[in-house]
């Protein structure tokens, strides 16, 4: 499989990265280089093999369903790029 300049623009849009206008052609080459290199995985027989999700198996831990955190509004807002009156300020998203 190989990607075109249009694919690169589509992938950038999906990834919410501003169209890298001056890098589109370079990215076509780079992504195709990487994608053709990873094609070799098709040589591996994975018939009946389970996908690995975690290297060491142990039961997923559970904890009591209780509140363990909170009441730290100022800490949560401390790194906000824009905040006001204890709220995040974000661009208008509902027309």
């Amino acid at each position: 499989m190989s990607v075109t300049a249009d694919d690169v623009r589509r992938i950038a849009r999906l990834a919410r990265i501003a169209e890298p206008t001056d890098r589109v052609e370079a990215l076509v080459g780079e992504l195709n280089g990487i994608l053709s290199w990873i094609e070799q995985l098709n040589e591996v027989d994975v018939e009946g093999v389970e996908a690995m999700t975690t290297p060491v198996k142990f039961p997923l831990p559970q904890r009591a369903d209780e509140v363990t955190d909170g009441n730290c509004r100022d800490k949560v807002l401390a790194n906000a790029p824009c905040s006001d009156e204890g709220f995040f300020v974000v661009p208008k998203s509902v027309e």
Partner: protein
Amino acid sequence: MSELFKLTLSDITAKLKAREVSAVELATEGLALCEAAQPKLNAFTAFDADKTLAMAKASDEKLARGEGGLIEGAPLAIKDLFAVEGVDTAASSNILKGFKPTYESSVTAKLWENGGVFLCKTSMDEFAMGSSNETSNTGPVNNPWKGPNGEMLTPGGSSGGSAAAVAADLCFGATGTDTGGSIRQPAAFTGTVGVKATYGRTSRWGTVAFASSLDHPGPFAKTVKDSALMLQAMSGHDPKDSTSLPNDVPDFVAAVGGSVKGLRIGVPKEYRVDGMPAEIDEAWQKGIDWLKAAGCEIVDISLPHTKYALPAYYIVAPAEASSNLARYDGMRYGNRVEGENLNATYENTRGAGFGHEVQRRIMIGTYVLSAGYYDAYYLRAQKVRTRILQDFEQAFEKVDAVLTPSAPSAAFELGSKSDDPIAMYLNDVFTVTANLAGLPAMSVPAGVDKDGLPLGLQIITPALDEETMFKVGAAIEDSAGFVAKPENWWS
């Protein structure tokens, strides 16, 4: 140059305990050394002298009462991926520039509980994506070791700043993270010891996420014993990380110096790759001879899926990264670049905030996870990963540890590989398998090449068996007698 900072972590903690030196004195000197070295090495991203001195003072008070943890009073360097409360933590990325966490990562919290003193944050490849520390938003780190004609070399990556700080004797230990080799390759390039434990031994909580199923926090140190001490002080169950192992932490330090007699050491034929310098092969052979002389049995083994590890990694890691890095949207934290609507704001924020390598990996990840390709790429790669783990499991029926080179070359010149992503990725060819399989692995300095540059050997052991890794590592260290140091041009 300070004589004190040339000491090992074990030696300095003994001196601190004996009150021969105070933690404040040490911290003050450490800050001065790092400050002096910064214009030359460019290894550091943040300092907080008030915090450093306050922590050192607290250590002195504990030591005066005859108390104190494992590494009480020892100044440590912290990779910029670990959240340190109140100190700039940016993962060497513009998107997080100026971010000051209001919380502490679990690993650094454990280090401070054990008496470590925060000294500095260290530079790294942006979001830990790189093998040369050249993608850092603060520019490349210079390896304390220079080339034969004075060339500036990479300290490796992604934890290049931490490796450089330990190699230049600017701290007594450092943290790194290893997702595909980001501790072990820089350790090999700088003549230091680098360890990643079994996946889940060290908590990932509060560490900026790259590829969650592959990320392993771990230490850099000057000696194998120091690395065991550091790992001891970093490890343990953390309820805040659901993948943190519930197992008790063994006494890693006690394993160092244990007999290796009778251990079976596997030598995998697949790690003899084309174009590998003869000196790497020779260092490997020396390692084999040393272990044989120490009473180990050498066994030729095969890990047939080795060549598929890197391609599988370059699907799994970008896929997880594209998902993890989706959080950087410029809304709640990080830097925002406004656009004419919400989507444009997201796109501008991420277009401006992420560097080229990070964008490339997010795009690869987005592509392999996009509709119609999931099975062909991501699912297949996860199955190949199972094959790689099975290779090791079969090998470990016959051997106790695997010995390989740590990296396919010595440190290379800055700028020499930055135009070719795949050439850069190949740096991790020997290290990435242990990340995919989640196994303990370490790099130990084994000698120097014809240019006097350090070379490392890697030891890989079964899951949860770090003790054998430390035993074998210490045996290599003893036999290698590696004492070479770069000439000091940074202070």
